[in-house]
């Protein structure tokens, strides 16, 4: 938990709270600016609401407060009546506005980058799917959730067939392209509640919560067909071997589940690739 989250929280109401603080802040600063006249250098305080809005909400809000601050600063300055010429006013307003806008843009840029970085740390750069680390976290959640509900789940391990051959003959760029296409096929063929991740290389996993054998088998078969078709369209000799385990009895940990699904995938490979093998564990009479 960082400091500003403790102060403002986040979520839908956060932006409203930040806006209120910024508006009140900028008006207070303007009032002080007006009251102290031209000699006291109050104007750097305007950076505070500008930066806060840009950091917490968006570039547009930062720019909005930069504009508002420029207007209020101009108003306070003109009310103090220094008797400058129009040209001097114009130069002052422009330099002031530029510095306000610059700060708002820089701050929001850093904020957006940090957010992106957080997302990237959970994402596989090539396919846009979840990465292995992120999958383990979601998966641990999902297994514990299944332990509570007692509902069966299915974990599928996918490994591309002939991927090495593709890489060796057509080059890594084509290989990467194929992985991307597989990634989008997986996303398209699974449901919102499923977790799809790239574990590394040409290995993928699909976690199907609350999914017994029949539903899992039809979903995975559809998925294999879809991947095969996409590969064929590109003229790539790639198919997919899928091994899945249906856990009618919920395992103690995600690691056990991954191990089992991986073992089933190897059996599918040994049985001659390009096939879906679904096994199940647990279940009582």
């Amino acid at each position, binding site marked *: 938990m960082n400091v500003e989250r403790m102060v403002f929280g986040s979520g839908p109401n956060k932006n409203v709270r930040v806006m209120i603080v910024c508006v009140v802040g900028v008006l207070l600063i303007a009032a002080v600016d007006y009251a102290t006249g031209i000699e006291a250098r109050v104007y750097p305080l305007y950076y505070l609401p500008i930066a806060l809005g840009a950091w917490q909400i968006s570039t547009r809000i930062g720019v909005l407060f930069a504009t508002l601050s420029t207007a209020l600063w101009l108003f306070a300055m003109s009310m103090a009546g220094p008797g400058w010429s129009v040209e001097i006013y114009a130069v002052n307003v422009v330099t002031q506005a530029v510095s306000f806008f610059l700060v708002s843009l820089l701050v929001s840029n850093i904020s957006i980058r940090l957010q992106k970085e957080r997302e990237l740390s959970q994402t596989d750069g090539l396919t846009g799917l979840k990465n292995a680390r992120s999958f383990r976290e979601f998966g641990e959640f999902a297994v514990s959730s299944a332990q509570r509900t007692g509902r069966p789940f299915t974990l599928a391990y996918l490994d591309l067939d002939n991927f090495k051959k593709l890489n060796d003959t057509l080059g890594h760029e084509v290989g990467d392209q194929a992985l991307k296409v597989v990634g989008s096929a997986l996303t398209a063929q699974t449901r919102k509640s499923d977790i799809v991740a790239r574990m590394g290389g040409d290995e993928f996993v699909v976690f199907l*919560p609350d999914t017994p054998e029949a539903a899992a088998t039809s979903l995975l078969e559809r998925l294999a067909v879809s991947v095969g078709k996409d590969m064929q369209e590109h003229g790539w000799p790639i198919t997919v071997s899928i091994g899945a385990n249906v856990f009618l009895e919920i395992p103690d940990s995600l690691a056990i589940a991954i191990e089992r699904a991986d073992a089933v995938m190897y059996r599918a490979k040994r049985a001659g690739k390009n096939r879906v093998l679904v096994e199940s564990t647990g279940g009582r009479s």
Partner: protein
Amino acid sequence: MKVEMIDVLVVGAGVSGLSAAWFLQKAGLSVQVIEAAPRIGGRTWSPEIAGTPFDMGATWVWDHETSVHQLIEGLGLETFVAGAPGDALFDAGPFVERMTLPASWAVERLLVGGTQSIANALAKNLESLSLETSLKRVSVHPEHLEVSTTGATILAKHVVLAFPPGHLHSSIELETVAAEHLKIIRSTPTWMADIAKIVFVFDEPFWRDAGLSGRAFSRVGPMQEVHDISQPDGSAALFGFIPRSGMSDSEMETEVINQMVRLFGEKAATPRGVKVHAWWNESGMTPDPKYFGHPILREPMMDGRLHLCSTETASLNTGHIDGAVGRAREVADLIRSSTR
């Protein structure tokens, strides 16, 4: 001493025993319930914390569970979906990660007034219920079973043992039941026997302002999971599961507060009320997971006159309230068909 003969004696006033008694009484049989503890409910227990009842034991009913929903509806009880949308937290120890779980994952449904209200509603309908009365012995006679208790001796045509099979104490005698069968019964794992629950009541659900659902999963503990159990009356609360560990109570308390602050910020350090309850239970025998929900537990004993009835013996949703109710329905149907 002249003793009246009843149709069914139910031993145990948890959800399973009370449901079985209610189903049988509704079918026109004479039923009596005895309970060893000074309260009913068994592992459903919803004591008041800071003025509102919260579940210290069984908490959720799931939407795929039909037996419990049917019972709840019949009793006129109400449920509600726990929590509010928001991110979950993954507690890896050195860092805490926010994650957006799919909305359709496991809808957590709670009972208004807590799950103990099921037992309370059932007990209100029953004609005979004695607390603080323990089972000592069941002996077999041609026309009836004779049950010795710490209170009166009871004669019944059928006896239902509605407590966790693993709690069948070695001092309790069940005449004619084979030693091998008794060993299996006593080796059955008891649901919840390895966890403690801790409930924190707050002035407001401050985690929601931070866009959090209140759900958390931890690799490091002491709480393995945290969930939102705020009530519809506005009382805000989170609860956690603590697996059995070697930690002392005071160590655990300090560690749990540290973890709450790590997850939800400083406001989590000052709850309005806290209550812990450990369901840790040492049964006489080492539990064997393979007997959990095993069909042998559903085999009637004493010529079809003695039945086990607890969620551990259920074939469906074993361990849950639904398992308790489903098994009670099954036992009641068996007894009714044999008395017809």
